[in-house]
């Protein structure tokens, strides 16, 4: 939409304007869910399972109920309501059995958090423990103990997903393209390797928090730190069979989401406690430890890649088998599997492909969406694999990537034809390779090696991602004009830090030709007042809500012109406007100010026409299809954003310690709406990707207990870890159906950083790594060929052998 607008014709789009949401944040006045105060507010705590797998024999809550200050105690027995986005496999509280260490089995609402905690400690639960299954490959084995024996009875979206009852497979996504046997026959070299990644936490700085109030006759209000208010409402109503208009979901400022707050979380439990406490509002806020061990994380992954390649570097075939460790529940994780099923090869053309992507249930904390899901994880193995093959062929890894890169005319894995409008991954690779002076070390770098005794390595990696969403994903935006011709924009896409509202404000300003300070995007979202939006996920906001904003602004102007036409006695087609007036094109002196049209035009005698000006824009993804369940063929992608990273890394060849010196990252953004927010997404995403690559990841003991559920042992990167230089580069191949040609770049900076780091380290010192995160210790082991004790490897998410 408007993708061919020339840069010089744009006033607000493309400029680094100030963010519209920061004033309240930098002054401490922004209210997040946990900051809300309301009369009669109760506080909730949960009782959690000390076993990874057990039957619940008995729960005794009597002592807890008798404790003064306790208003409600609830157990899973009372709540036969199932929750889930794509596969409805969760209860509000564990019922009958527990499936992961830390799962909530009971909850209390009390006057204070301390009383609630005390009451939780008084709840007595009797368990009968069972052998947990903790490894996704072991879970795949015939006769593996079942995590969900009732899988066959669960509801799920049948057009898209394939659970296999009687197994631990929550979903099997298949991709079949071309003739895989022939592809391998045509190959000169076949390379097969296995890779793995652990579970990782999103770590929003604000932990999950919800306040629920369930009044008689099912009038329900939820205040929550959710990314997707309408999805919370939808899933809630589905679970409790309540009409949508009886439930109001209110999302104030959100302290980061990254996918972890995309679905439904603590809201139902807070509401159920409220119902039991006679309708008093109940607040349930996760502690940081609960954020790690109660709430969902990124699925782990164990995968095998087998690639056939010709001597000249052309890939002929690729077979991939992916075992996603979804943990105890897979309501969202099945879609992670699906996303990896249709995109797993990276931005490369694979003429003959065969992918089996399995969502495996295990007795661990459960997986969900995490920024770039299905791609960040797989990009580790794929990008390591690409380098490994190139080295085998003695071809430069960048040349190897360029040879196989998707380009106009290429067919993607699902059979979609790449066009010159799709985006240009080769340009992204070339841009970062120039930026890091790929190919050799500069004089300064050689001098640095000499001075420090470190070895410097460089790598270029490439990536792609399209929004992983249903093909019919929809949104709407409403723009209301105020009496003074300022406007207020309402939408249910949430502002979680990504800068979406600033971009929307710029687009509206551009369309209306109003200055930015006359555009306000209403900063909280309320399902009673905002129009529908599916979810704030998948880097789809700018395309879908951006288009809806354009349409809403055009609708607003159309309505203003209709009234103005009557006032000015002119046809609307002869009208134009500036930031103040609507005027007749051929008699510019004949005009009427927006402020007199805003809430209806009144003639001097009191007669009136028009009415409050409201513009509505609806937008739905168009032309996409579900994928064929047997072959994976179809059109899943709203837009493909391509990108590349170039990394310069130095490694201590003795100890394996390493420093990231420089990272350049390029994305084909289609059109950069705001270079400052774009850079914010790039730098922030790259650093988050580095965290995934070098230090984050769940570590369990043999019984399935999470050992590092706090910042003490689950480090995230700090300001000290920022690479010396970080460069963000934009390529602009306009997206025809993107707002002003724009594509999303929210998730992409995080993708393939892991593979890039692994490759740069390999190029620096020869350490060949197949498991991430990459700790200094792992590099040391790889350099000196010292095997890791098998036990510690397993606990960090390396798989046992199938």
């Amino acid at each position, binding site marked *: 939409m408007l993708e061919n607008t020339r840069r010089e014709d744009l006033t607000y789009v493309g400029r680094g304007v100030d963010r519209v949401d920061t004033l309240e944040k930098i002054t401490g006045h922004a209210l997040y869910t946990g900051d809300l105060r309301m009369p009669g507010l109760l506080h909730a705590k949960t009782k959690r399972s000390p076993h990874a797998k057990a039957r619940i024999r008995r729960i005794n809550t009597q002592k807890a109920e008798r404790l003064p200050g306790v208003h409600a105690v609830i157990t899973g027995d009372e709540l036969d309501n199932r929750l889930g986005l794509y596969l409805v496999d969760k209860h509000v509280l564990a019922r009958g059995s527990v499936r992961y260490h830390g799962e909530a089995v009971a909850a209390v609402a009390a006057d204070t*958090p*301390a009383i609630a*905690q*005390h009451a939780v400690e008084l709840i007595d639960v009797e368990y009968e423990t069972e052998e947990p299954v903790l490894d996704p490959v072991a879970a795949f084995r015939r006769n593996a103990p079942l995590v969900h024996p009732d899988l066959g009875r669960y509801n799920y979206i049948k057009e898209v997903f394939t659970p296999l009852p009687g197994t631990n497979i929550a979903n099997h996504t298949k991709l079949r393209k071309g003739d895989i046997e022939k592809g391998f026959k045509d190959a000169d070299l076949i390379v097969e390797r296995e890779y793995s990644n652990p579970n990782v936490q999103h770590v929003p700085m604000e932990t999950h928090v919800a306040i629920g109030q369930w009044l008689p006759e099912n009038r329900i209000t939820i205040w929550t730190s959710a990314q997707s208010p309408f999805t919370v409402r939808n899933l809630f109503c589905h679970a409790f069979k309540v009409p949508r208009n009886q439930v109001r979901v209110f999302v104030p400022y959100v302290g980061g989401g990254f996918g972890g707050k995309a679905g439904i979380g603590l809201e139902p439990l807070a509401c159920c406690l409220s119902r039991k406490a006679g309708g008093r509002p109940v607040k349930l806020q996760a502690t940081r*430890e609960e954020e790690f061990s109660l709430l969902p994380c990124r699925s782990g992954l164990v995968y095998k890649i087998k690639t056939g390649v010709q001597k000249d570097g052309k890939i002929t075939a690729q077979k991939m088998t992916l075992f996603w460790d979804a943990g105890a529940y897979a309501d969202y994780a099945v879609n992670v599997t699906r996303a990896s099923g249709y995109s797993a090869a990276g931005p490369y053309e694979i003429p003959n492909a065969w992918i089996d992507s399995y969502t495996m249930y295990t007795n661990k904390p459960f997986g969900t969406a995490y920024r770039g899901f299905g791609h960040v994880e797989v990009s580790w193995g794929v990008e390591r694999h690409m380098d490994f093959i190139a080295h085998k062929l003695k071809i430069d890894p960048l040349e190897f990537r360029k040879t196989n890169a998707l380009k106009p005319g290429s067919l993607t894995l699902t059979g979609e034809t790449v066009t010159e409008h799709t985006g240009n991954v080769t340009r992204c690779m070339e841009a970062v390779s120039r930026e890091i002076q790929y190919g050799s070390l500069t004089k300064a770098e050689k001098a640095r090696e000499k001075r420090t005794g470190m070895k410097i390595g460089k790598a270029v990696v490439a990536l792609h991602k399209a929004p992983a969403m249903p093909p019919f994903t929809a949104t709407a935006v409403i723009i209301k004009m105020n009496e003074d011709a300022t406007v207020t924009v309402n939408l249910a896409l949430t502002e979680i830090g990504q800068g979406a509202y600033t971009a929307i404000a710029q687009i509206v300003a551009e369309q209306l030709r109003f200055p930015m300070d006359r555009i306000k995007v209403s900063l909280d979202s309320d399902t009673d007042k905002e129009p529908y939006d599916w979810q704030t996920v998948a880097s789809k906001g700018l395309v879908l809500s951006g288009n809806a904003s354009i349409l809403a602004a055009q609708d607003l102007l159309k309505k203003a012109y209709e009234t103005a036409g009557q006032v000015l006695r002119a046809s609307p087609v002869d009208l134009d406007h500036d930031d103040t007036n609507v005027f007749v094109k051929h008699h510019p002196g004949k005009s009427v100010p927006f402020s007199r049209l805003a809430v209806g035009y009144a003639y001097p005698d009191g007669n009136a026409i028009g009415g409050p000006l409201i513009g509505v824009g609806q937008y739905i993804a168009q032309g996409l299809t579900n994928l064929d369940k047997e072959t994976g063929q179809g059109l899943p992608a709203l837009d493909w954003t391509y990108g590349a990273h170039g990394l310069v890394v130095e490694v201590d060849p*003795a*100890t394996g310690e390493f420093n990231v010196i420089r990272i350049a990252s390029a994305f084909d953004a289609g059109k950069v709406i705001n270079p400052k927010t774009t850079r914010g997404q790039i730098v922030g995403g790259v650093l988050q990707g580095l965290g995934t690559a*070098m*230090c984050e990841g769940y*570590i369990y003991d043999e019984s399935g207990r999470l*050992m*590092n559920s706090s910042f*003490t*042992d689950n*480090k995230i*990167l*700090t*300001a*000290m*870890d920022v690479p010396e230089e970080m460069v963000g580069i934009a390529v602009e191949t306009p997206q025809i159906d993107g707002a002003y040609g724009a594509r999303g770049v929210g998730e992409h900076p995080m993708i393939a950083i892991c593979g890039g780091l692994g490759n740069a380290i390999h190029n620096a010192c020869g350490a060949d790594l197949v498991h991430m995160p990459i*700790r*200094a*210790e792992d590099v*040391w*082991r790889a350099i000196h060929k*010292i095997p*890791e*004790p098998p*036990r*510690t490897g397993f*606990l960090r998410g390396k798989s046992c052998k199938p």
Partner: protein
Amino acid sequence: MLYEFQYVAPKTKSELLALLDRHGDSCKIMAGGTDLLVDIRAGLRKPQVLIDIKKVSDFKPLSFSEKEGLLIGPATTCADVIRDKTVSREFPILIQAAKQLASTQVRNRATIVGNICNASPCADTALPLLCLDASVHIVSKSGSRIVKLKDFFTGVKKTALRKDEVVEKITVPSSMAGGRGGFMKLKRIKGHDLSLVSVCLVKKGSLLRVAIGSASPTPVVLKDFPAQVTADNVADEALRSVKPIDDIRCSKDYRLFMIKTYIERLIEEC
């Protein structure tokens, strides 16, 4: 906090000692609170009474004299030490290690004495103090005693301190003033982190001393070496003296390797 305790802040030493005598097992001494409050929040400790020693007026602050050496009071924070010009001149190694302890916010509260009394195997400030031959001055209602720091640690989070005792100061002999050395700490990130393993070396005159953290149940100081000792000799002694374990932070063999590496590098640098 999710459970209730009583907070008391005695103003004098005798008041403090009486409180300790009275509450014994059920109380816990708090200085900076940066470890204790974390443990309480996590439910690892449940004292009934918290005795804040920061307001005891007759405890001495940080000072240095030729006669007494360096005196570190029970309320002296890491930040106090880092900012102190005399420490910077006479005992720079202490500052080097103190700067590696957690973050600015924590260093502004955490005390050196608290770091020692917490007796974690990874206590950052323990290593330079061991190298500097520090002494721990202990008082109780029944009297006072002095324990060498190397004898103070008795196990993981265990010390020679009895329930009714409190550390009133740590001293470093002025004979160690002017000692130079280095502190190396292996971390998972460049940002603030606990040590996976750490080595501290101090050289003064003809003496060389090395201490090692996160490699045994307690921080360990090796026997004294002559200043001209070879790295191999020190490393051999080190590997004989430590007992690192495999844990979620690091494995035993990498710890051993890094101890050796740090010793080689420190001897070369210092």
